[in-house]
């Protein structure tokens, strides 16, 4: 310890540095545990994950809705065609009535 060689001088403060580093690490760990307590104590992580998972389960429902809507679109088109056909047919009925009356004369 009393030798004044340069190697021992360079390792002079190694012990102090190590202790300082340990103190700093202890403080950092304190801060980390405090923050972890805040985060876990508020349970925000769990709540948000739960709600996100529920929302993600609705994906299937939404696909179902989309398929139904497309079916509805085609049904509407078909109903429209049917309506046109019915109108034409009703007009034809009128014409047929007139023809029958004409034939009766």
């Amino acid at each position, binding site marked *: *310890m*009393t*030798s*004044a*060689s*340069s190697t*021992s*001088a360079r390792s*002079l403060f190694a*012990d*102090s540095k190590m*202790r*300082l580093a340990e*103190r700093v690490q202890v403080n950092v760990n304190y801060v980390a545990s*405090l923050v972890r*307590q*805040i*985060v876990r*104590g*508020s*349970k*925000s992580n769990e*709540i*948000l994950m*739960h*709600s*996100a998972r*529920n*929302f993600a389960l*609705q994906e299937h*429902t*939404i696909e*179902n*809705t989309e398929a*139904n*809507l497309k*079916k*509805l679109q085609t*049904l*509407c088109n*078909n*109903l429209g065609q*049917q*309506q046109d*056909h*019915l109108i034409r*047919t*009703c007009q*034809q*009925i009128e*014409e*047929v009535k007139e*023809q*029958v009356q*004409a*034939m*009766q*004369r």
Partner: protein
Amino acid sequence: MGSEQSASQSRPVSFEESNPRQLNFRRQHTIANPGGGNAEPPYDGERPGSTSPGPSVCSDIDLPYISYTVNRPIGADSPKLTNKQQSKPKSSQRKLQSKNVKKTPAHNIVVVKPALSGPNTDRDPDILRLQAIPMFLPIMRATLNLPAARDPEVLERLDPVPMQRMCSRYQNHMYTCANLVATEQNILTQKIREIDLDVAKMVAVASDRLKNFSKHQDKLKKVQELSHQLNKCHILLNHTLESMELLNNYLDIEDRLEPFVWTTG
């Protein structure tokens, strides 16, 4: 090495450690002073009273004053002592009034050469900045040899109650926000399910209507066929009537039938 020298060669030059206040004016050149840093003792013309290492036995010219720090690490002295030593360079000109004959431990500082304070000392910006440094304590109170329990002092200075209040407020805030978001998401989920059910109902209604109307459509197609057939019938009837008229006219006047009249019942 240095401490052993001082222990064996102590002289009236060295001073008592129990007067920390009077030691504040001792300043030692800790940096090698090539110009004026002679190992010149203040009172005697000899070397033996100085604790500085002699001409270096080993070849470490770059670190000449190691022995001071080896045996006297930074935390060994009190903080007031170190602070006063740093903050008063001018007072190094004062000389001590009493001389002690006691053997001194290796904690006294010997002035190798008194400091030169020129007329511009007070206006030197560096010295002014040095004087403006506030008092501070070292980071770690413990030293290599004295593990000190000074941490409670540090902890007493920090009041934990406001910190704890702030942390619990933050925690509650996070909890509240998370709950709000979760309730909104749940409402959205329910609405999605309701919409899905409604759309499914609408699809069922529309498909029912489509089936019914297709049945009506099939029935009404018969009307169209009927009208076609009626048309054909009418045309055939007209044709037949014409043919009858023609045939009737071909006959002699005696055999002709009466003109055909379509009587309705």
